[in-house]
């Protein structure tokens, strides 16, 4: 198997793992490979990684493919062949796609058409449905949640800071122009002060949304670090204030931490949105002000019980915004005991977030 074909199969396999590898990256990679000693595994790995991968979150996928292809990595004589191939065909990009006649015995690649598939299939874990991921994948997803929270926080802050498109502050501009002989050298605009976001989160932690609640709790934990005014409540059939609780928990087991340390299980232990909402109304309704944005994470599967939607209606009338994040795809809404339709009129927006990518998108919209 010629080196170039082998590399080509390697690139193809990376793409199959949804690592975006562009032609210019392939060109850079080949160019870089000529500059290094292939006999050193670190050099070789680092060269491929730095030219082909541009985001740290792909590292795991990249490592897997790399292991599969270069376990018995290239020996010095192979490198000589590669160089002779290159000297004959100076244009790197063309030469990569060209089929070469050199066979330097590298064994059959297990890439395209081979039997070996990366464990977990070819999908990026971030795009996989919450309902269908393994515990191990869940951990790897959770690791990316703080980043997501940071991006969100950065976005909110950015919104607050843009001042340059505001109305001209005439008085200040004229005042400062006096020192330059009446010529307004510096323009001043009116600062607009935005209210700091006040966030209140209600999070379903029942078994039906197990994976999703792990993610949303991790998200709450991260958001609590970035926002000053944030309150969080968890529920199954009883609602409990968990603000600040997550700061002390093990990030890998937030859900267990909440179940142990907060009173979220009531009489039955089955999700009960109606009871939760009524309780919330009794105990915490004063927490909602005109400035509050209410975020609800849950699947609205109510085990055929009272929906208590009048509470949500009241929340809606008092809060600034109400958003609902539902881990189920739209096709499953209102099937079985899901009563999301009952709540929809009282939400400013209901998002379907079956995976992390969607969740991030929806969070970005608010």
């Amino acid at each position: 198997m010629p080196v170039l074909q082998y590399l080509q199969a390697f690139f193809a396999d990376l793409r199959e793992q949804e690592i975006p590898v562009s032609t210019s990256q392939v060109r850079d990679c080949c160019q870089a490979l000529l500059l290094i000693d292939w006999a050193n595994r670190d050099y070789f790995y680092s060269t491929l990684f730095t030219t082909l991968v541009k985001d740290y979150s792909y590292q795991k996928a990249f490592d897997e493919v790399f292991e599969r292809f270069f376990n018995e990595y290239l020996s010095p004589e192979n490198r000589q062949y590669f160089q002779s191939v290159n000297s004959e065909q100076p244009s790197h990009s063309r030469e990569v796609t060209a089929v070469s006649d050199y066979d330097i015995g590298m064994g059959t690649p297990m890439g395209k058409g081979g039997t070996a598939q990366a464990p977990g299939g070819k999908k990026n874990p971030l795009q996989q449905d919450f309902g269908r991921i393994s515990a191990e994948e869940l951990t790897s997803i959770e690791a990316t949640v703080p980043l997501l929270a940071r991006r969100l926080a950065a976005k909110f802050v950015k919104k607050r800071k843009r001042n340059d498109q505001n109305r001209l502050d005439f008085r200040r501009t004229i005042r400062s122009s006096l020192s330059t002989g009446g010529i307004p050298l510096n323009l001043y605009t009116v600062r607009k002060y935005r209210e700091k976001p006040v966030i209140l989160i209600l999070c379903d932690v029942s078994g039906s949304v197990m994976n999703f609640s792990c993610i949303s709790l991790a998200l709450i934990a991260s958001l609590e670090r970035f926002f000053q005014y944030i309150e969080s409540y968890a529920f199954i059939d009883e609602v409990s204030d968990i603000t600040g609780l997550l700061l002390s928990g093990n990030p890998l087991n937030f859900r267990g931490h909440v179940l142990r340390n907060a009173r979220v299980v009531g009489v039955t232990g089955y999700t009960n949105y109606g009871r939760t909402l009524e309780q919330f109304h009794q105990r915490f309704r004063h927490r909602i002000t005109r400035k509050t944005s209410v975020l609800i994470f849950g699947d609205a599967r109510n085990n055929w019980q009272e929906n208590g939607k009048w509470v949500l209606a009241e929340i809606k009338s008092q809060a600034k915004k109400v958003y609902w994040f539902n881990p189920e795809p739209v096709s499953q809404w209102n099937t079985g005991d899901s009563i999301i339709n009952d709540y929809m009129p009282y939400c400013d927006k209901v998002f379907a977030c079956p995976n992390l990518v969607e969740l991030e998108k929806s969070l970005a919209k608010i």
Partner: protein
Amino acid sequence: MDNMQIMKGKMLRAGYICDDKVATVLYLAGAMKKPVLVEGPAGVGKTAIAQAFSQVTQLPLIRLQCYEGLDEAKALYEWNYKRQLLHIQAVANKNLSVQQIEEDIFSDNFLLTRPLLKSITSDSPTVLLIDEIDKVDFEFEAMLLELLSEFQITIPEIGTVRAQHQPFVFLTSNATRELSEALKRRCLYLYLDFPSKEMEKQILMLKIPNLPPSLAEKVAQVVRQLRGLELKKPPSIAESIDWAASLLWLGKEDLDVETTLQTLTTVVKYREDQEKLERIIYRDRDLNFRA
């Protein structure tokens, strides 16, 4: 000795310890003349790598610190309006033609060069460090993209300024937002993570020459444990160096529970983090920091 080992040795003499993988990227950046995008958590030496590289190559370092609202006037160039104004007033009664005055005031003398323009008009090659690129907005990033691919800047009043020497470019990012694909494609990618215990020990001993190895080892080990905990801000390499230095100043030979409690403030900077660590230390009475 191959190129990577030479690079490693040079970086070491510049006060920066790097492994084979990092050395490879640096070597490739030099050989292929490509910008390097450095990502990683805060305090792992992203900025220091560019500084060390400029020492290694003995080229001047030009630094552009990015922040929210950074615009071209602050990054590229700006006309010195006040001087232009003074000049116009000064020549007002000298009967110069309008054209002459315009030529005067739009010449190099009235141009304030900002870091990006400076780096490409410099007489010798430079190392250009664009720090925290993720802080700027998309418009600026697009402008930067043009600069990084063509190494030229167009100033309407003067014309196109082309780089005489292509600078070595380092971009650092804390990944607070996704950078554009196009920008990432143009760069070699380098992810720096916190160093291994062994490497951190070496760093400590390099930065503080008279630090006893046993203390360096202990500090490296404890700092590593701290980073494993969920802290608001995990200790950076700079902080672990500070810590080791302060222990040395206090004349401590070993790091025990008491000493740690006394000097905790040099290594964790948030009140909540300190309280959390104190709680754990008082509970366990050792420095293993089990969660």
